[in-house]
């Protein structure tokens, strides 16, 4: 059957950034409102899945820049890295640490191991799903 994908292509270019932004939004404010690393990662994965449907797996690999598997391992290492401060401080595993980095004036950048952990979850979820989808699509082609 014919494969005219103009509309899908164009639409994907519009929708994907929205989804990606929304996923970051969900990730960052997940500690206070519905969201978090899982949900954020799933939404981000949806974004790339859309892209993959529109442009194929090769193009998706290109915009991901890294192999999804590397994304996955980065996520795992991030999550593991979040245990380091507790490890160094001699506390039980996964004890949370919170820092406030002063920025300009009286604004602060709130950082915590919890956030690092959640970012790790985000990346791992994204990496996992992209591994599924990209490889499956490649095996079809």
């Amino acid at each position, binding site marked *: 059957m014919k494969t005219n994908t103009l509309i899908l292509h164009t639409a994907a270019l519009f929708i994907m950034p929205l989804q990606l932004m929304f996923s970051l939004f969900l990730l960052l404010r997940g500690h*206070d*409102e*519905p969201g978090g690393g*899982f949900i954020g990662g799933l939404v981000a994965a949806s974004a790339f899945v859309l892209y993959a449907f529109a442009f194929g797996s090769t193009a998706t690999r290109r915009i991901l820049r890294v192999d999804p598997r590397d994304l996955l391992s980065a996520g795992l290492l991030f999550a593991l890295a979040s245990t380091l401060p507790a490890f160094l401080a001699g506390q039980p595993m996964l004890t949370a640490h919170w820092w406030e980095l002063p920025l300009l004036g009286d604004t602060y950048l709130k950082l915590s191991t919890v956030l690092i952990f959640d970012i790790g979850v985000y990346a791992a*979820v994204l990496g*996992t799903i992209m591994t*599924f989808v990209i490889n*499956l699509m490649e095996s079809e082609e």
Partner: protein
Amino acid sequence: MESLMAYVVGILFAAAIYMMLRRSIVKLVIGLILLSNAANLLIFVVSGMTRGAPPLLPEGAEVPLGAMADPLPQALILTAIVIAFGVLAFAVVLIRRAYEVVGTDDLDQMKDTDT
């Protein structure tokens, strides 16, 4: 609602098991999906269902203003959902690969390894 949902969960289990008992590998996978949904719902039901009180604290508040749904089973179910998803992805690819190498979707013809 819990008692009603108990029946629903029971039916989900029944459907899941019936599907898993079929000989087609595709039905097996559908059964697995139903099964994980059933188990997740079961946790949700037995730990109590609360209407309209999600475990979100209002901005600025340190403690909830009223009763609140139990957050713990929700966290468990969330974990279980994601795990089930990973497992399912694996299972789906497994059946496809099995179909490719064995050349049939009939589970009854996949018994060479046992005896």
